[in-house]
């Protein structure tokens, strides 16, 4: 019989190394799911210690038990729901030794919920270096619960933590320190009256406006708000009453390092220079470094497809695998280098503590565009993918700022656009260098800038349309600088890349197979292709290719492309590009795999997609199909249109508004069409 797993919840403030601890405990045996109804990541992992099985749930970082954002609401709901499936048997509250006073505030709130609790003081190794010494024995006596010093980074104290979790935790309530309006006895009576788990559960349900006891409050001459304010003051008073006894801080040493670095990184001039330099380095390395593995993948996929073709008996199924499925998978795999580099940079910025400095630097500027400094994080994530970007907008408290951030996020150059850009830029820009910079890289940077500028302009328009006088505020903690944990970064990259490959992979693979089938089936003309071509041509040279071209044109896919050709001709696209546009409505990156599927069906030669497109000529004029005008028009179309079903879905999920989801889709599509139209007409 399987013994019951002990459920552990990890709770703590943001940026205190809670995730490092989670990764340390569970390694790779973790999975990310979703909480019902909201798109907050729910991370659950497992580990075994001394024959005891544990299930660990890593809750989002919170600052207090008064919800201000969706994340916080969720944690609080979770901790209040004793009947819930995942209700913890034990709680580990993680605090940072570097921010002890502030983190203890949350600890005391959780402690008062009277669930068996262990206090884990993280980063004790760094704290020691920065002149902080902590007496955990005194703390344990005072708080009446186990207190363990750990370093999630080095693994210090983890065995002790695990051992403590295996045993029965002795944690007793301490005296009420959060209110002087209610006596302990009164709280006890109310707890029973309203059937709450603890006195503090009752208190919270009053201050969080879930329980209405207006008469009592009136009689006591107080309000929910006053109770909350008093709670903060009283709790800090309590913390201060013992703090100096348990912690010895060499004040000057403790925060000296961070403030000194801040003087430089937040400098009114150099701070911005550094920020721009970091952005520029990210984009350059995306293009320059990622280009090599991407070339290998492209060539490798061609090779595998060729080998498959020769190894398997020829037939429809072999063609489906070699020309449909393999290039389809290749279209997903080719993303991995760029995604990995992007997430490497982002997790480095986040882990080191620099991300919140960007919020600080950009707040004033972002307000001009109707957003807040906090919009920077979602916007920067959108360079990787708009989906995590839009989800990250959840931390913005102000509704208007949040909506604007969501609406403009997909205009930023996401990684799905990169393969499309790479192909199109290679077609029109020579592979040359200006000094140390690749010319193609510079054009790529220009495309990024175009995305940024358009997003900001769109934000101004929305700021002007959405009048509303929501009060906008900003109050955030800037964590101390820390050298990022390599293992954390690797796990994060692995997590993001694999979830992207799985999700995008499904869409791309399915559409590749559908495309292949549609491209290799057709009506009467398709079936009689050889006869028709024979009767129309006298020249035997290139006969097979002509048959293939005729077949493609008359396949179901070709018919579909030709149907929409009149709409897209003013933009400079032929029916083949039309097919790619239709198929990439689901996801932009499908463009490249569609193009390679279309052209590998048509031709028997194996070559890379770029060479294939370069060779493509217009049947009427003999000019290159992917000339300057068409390529630029396509670049612009992909820069502005919202060709990503997942983004549409996540916008709806996050805004819960069909209206704004539709507005986002329409404004981007119409703008994309108009700009591409103008560009083609002007350049042609």
């Amino acid at each position, binding site marked *: 019989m399987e013994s019951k797993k002990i459920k552990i919840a990890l709770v703590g403030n943001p940026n205190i190394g809670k995730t490092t601890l989670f990764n340390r405990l569970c390694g790779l045996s973790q999975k990310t799911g979703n909480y019902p109804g909201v798109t907050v990541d729910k991370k659950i992992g497992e580990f075994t210690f001394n024959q005891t099985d544990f299930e660990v749930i890593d809750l989002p970082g919170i600052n207090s038990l008064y919800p201000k954002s969706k994340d916080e609401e969720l944690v609080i709901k979770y901790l209040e729901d004793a009947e819930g499936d995942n209700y913890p048997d034990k709680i580990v509250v993680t605090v940072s030794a570097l921010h002890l006073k502030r983190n203890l505030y949350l600890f005391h709130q959780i402690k008062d919920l009277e669930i068996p609790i262990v206090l884990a003081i993280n980063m004790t190794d760094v704290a020691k270096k920065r002149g902080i010494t902590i007496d955990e024995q005194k703390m344990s006596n005072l708080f009446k619960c186990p207190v363990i010093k750990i370093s999630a980074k080095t693994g210090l104290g983890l065995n002790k933590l695990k051992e403590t979790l295996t045993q029965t935790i002795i944690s007793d309530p301490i005296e009420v320190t959060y209110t002087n309006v209610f006596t302990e006895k009164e709280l006890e009576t109310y707890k029973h009256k309203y059937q709450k788990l603890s006195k503090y559960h009752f208190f919270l349900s009053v201050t969080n406006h879930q329980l209405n006891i207006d008469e009592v409050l009136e009689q006591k001459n107080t309000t929910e708000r006053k109770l909350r304010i008093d709670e903060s*003051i009283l709790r800090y008073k309590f913390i201060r009453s013992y703090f100096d006894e348990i912690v010895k801080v060499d004040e000057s040493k403790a925060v000296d390092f961070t*403030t000194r670095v801040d003087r430089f990184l937040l400098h*009114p*001039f150099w701070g911005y220079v550094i920020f721009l330099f970091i952005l520029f380095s990210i984009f350059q390395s995306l293009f320059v470094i990622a280009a090599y593995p991407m070339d290998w993948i492209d060539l490798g996929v061609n090779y595998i497809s060729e080998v498959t073709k020769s190894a398997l008996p020829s037939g429809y199924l072999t063609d489906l695998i070699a020309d449909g499925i393999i290039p389809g998978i290749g279209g997903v795999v080719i993303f991995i280098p760029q995604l990995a580099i992007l997430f490497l940079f982002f997790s480095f910025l986040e882990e080191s503590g620099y991300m919140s400095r960007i919020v*600080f630097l950009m707040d004033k500027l972002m307000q001009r565009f109707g957003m807040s*400094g906090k919009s920077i994080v979602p916007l920067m994530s959108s360079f990787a993918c708009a989906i995590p970007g839009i989800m990250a907008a959840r931390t913005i408290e102000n509704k208007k700022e949040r909506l604007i951030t969501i609406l403009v996020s997909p205009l930023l150059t996401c990684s799905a656009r990169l393969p499309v850009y790479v192909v199109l830029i290679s077609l029109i820009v020579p592979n040359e260098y200006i000094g140390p910079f690749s010319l193609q890289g510079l054009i790529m940077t220009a495309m990024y800038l175009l995305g940024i500028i358009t997003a900001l302009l769109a934000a101004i328009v929305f700021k002007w349309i959405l009048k509303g006088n929501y009060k906008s505020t900003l109050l955030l903690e800037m964590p101390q600088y820390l050298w990022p944990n390599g293992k954390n970064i690797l796990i994060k990259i692995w997590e993001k890349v694999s979830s992207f490959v799985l999700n995008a992979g499904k869409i791309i693979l399915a559409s590749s197979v559908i495309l292949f089938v549609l491209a290799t089936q057709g009506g009467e003309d398709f079936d009689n292709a050889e006869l028709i071509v024979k009767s129309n041509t006298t020249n035997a040279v290139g006969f097979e290719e002509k048959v293939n071209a005729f077949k493609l044109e008359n396949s179901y896919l070709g018919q579909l492309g030709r149907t929409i050709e009149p709409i897209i001709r003013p933009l400079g696209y032929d029916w083949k590009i039309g097919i790619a546009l239709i198929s990439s409505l689901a996801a932009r990156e499908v463009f490249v795999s569609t193009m390679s599927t279309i052209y590998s069906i048509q031709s028997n030669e194996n070559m890379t997609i770029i060479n294939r497109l370069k060779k493509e000529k217009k049947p009427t004029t003999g000019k290159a199909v992917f000339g300057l005008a068409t390529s630029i028009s396509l670049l612009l179309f992909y820069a502005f249109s919202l060709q990503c079903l997942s983004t549409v879905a996540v916008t709806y999920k996050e805004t819960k508004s069909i209206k704004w989801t539709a507005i986002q889709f329409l404004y981007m599509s119409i703008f994309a069409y108009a700009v591409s139209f103008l560009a083609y007409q002007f350049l042609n």
Partner: protein
Amino acid sequence: MKTRLTDIKINTGAIIKTIEDNTLITKMFEFGLLPGTKITIINKAPFDGPISVLVDDSIIALREKEAHFILMEN
């Protein structure tokens, strides 16, 4: 003359006297910005951008608009 947080120069410490009522007051308290607390201004972003202050062992950033509500001892 009331001294406000916004009047304090970079690199100087001061003690919070009171905080005038505002929408963020509960959050300010939760972040440890309480009357009687000693704080130090660390950075000010240009063009009247946010201000970062050292409160106990944490660095907190807030906008000038909100810093205005915080009154300091002279």
